[in-house]
């Protein structure tokens, strides 16, 4: 299936992503929490500071300057086993990036670049969620297809049941 992230211009992403081969033996110097990024400067954020949605969800952090690995642990690259999981993973990536940009904009509300990015991911997300719900059932009650005769909101699996 098409990777919708390719619609984001390449220059939104940093070289970080193209060359991302972390050397796990060199991570110890980055552990000190006092080395937090200068939060006062984040309004000057440029595109090189952001990870791709894939990397962002995998590691739990969209912002390269604040990503802080623990010891020599490497985050997992999340993989999908089928079409349903692949679409759901796309949705999770979008949800996650939107959460990250949301929290950022809460304290930096005038960053127009981040607002544009939010809008772009949001419109992509709406499209994927719509396609997912048509094929695999609702993710929210808003996604119920009211023309259906059967109530499919209560179909398993529930999120805590995992994928078999």
């Amino acid at each position, binding site marked *: 299936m098409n990777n919708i992230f390719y619609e984001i211009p390449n220059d939104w992403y940093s070289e970080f992503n193209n060359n991302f081969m972390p050397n796990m033996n060199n991570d110890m110097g980055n552990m000190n929490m006092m080395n*937090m*990024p200068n939060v006062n400067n984040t309004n000057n954020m440029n595109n090189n500071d952001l990870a791709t949605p894939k990397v962002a969800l995998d590691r*739990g952090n969209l912002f390269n300057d604040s990503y802080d690995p623990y010891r020599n642990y490497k985050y997992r690259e999340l993989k999908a086993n089928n079409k349903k999981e692949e679409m*759901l*993973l796309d949705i999770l990536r979008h949800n996650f990036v939107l959460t990250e940009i949301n929290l950022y904009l*809460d304290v930096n509300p005038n960053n127009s670049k981040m607002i544009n990015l939010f809008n772009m991911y949001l419109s992509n997300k709406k499209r994927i969620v719509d396609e997912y719900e048509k094929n695999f059932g609702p993710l929210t*009650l808003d996604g119920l297809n009211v023309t259906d005769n059967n109530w499919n909101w209560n179909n398993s699996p529930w999120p805590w049941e995992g994928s078999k």
Partner: protein
Amino acid sequence: MWKYVKTLEYPVNIKKKDLRMAKYLVTQYGGANGELAAAWRYLNQRYTMPDDKGKALLTDIGTEELAHVEIISTMIYQLMKDATLDELKEAGLDTHYAEHGKGLYPTDANGVPFTVMYFATTGDPLADITEDMAAEQKARAVYENLINLTSDQDVIDVLLFLRQREIIHFNRFKALYDEYLKKGYK
């Protein structure tokens, strides 16, 4: 209001039963530095934030913490669901079973039930946000302790994700704190 989205924020698929780990992990559900305390700390403090930035940030981070409550609960459920009574006894979870069967219950790792004493609200934005920053750091430290206690990659992956969220939340609270300090909010 809140709406339920029928997916986790980050996928959890733990294949191996591990009752000891379930017993430790529960502290991030119902312990002093856990996700339930975090969610309610922020969602309770937000009403008296002095401007829109604070009201928005505490609402949105509080909301994400609810998703983390669900992730931690999911991990405990998956680690415990196939346990036999003998295995529960051996792991010291027979006392949990006596009270709750195989159901979930928010306690810390010592079985002490969740209490709102785990968080404070002073109504003073600088004091409250300082507590929030400390809470994120303490939760990060607990996640590191938990990572050290397991070798199950399925568990570690999720804990690494949650740990990273503490770092982001800390940064956002710190930005808000610095701005409020500068503005002289009291």
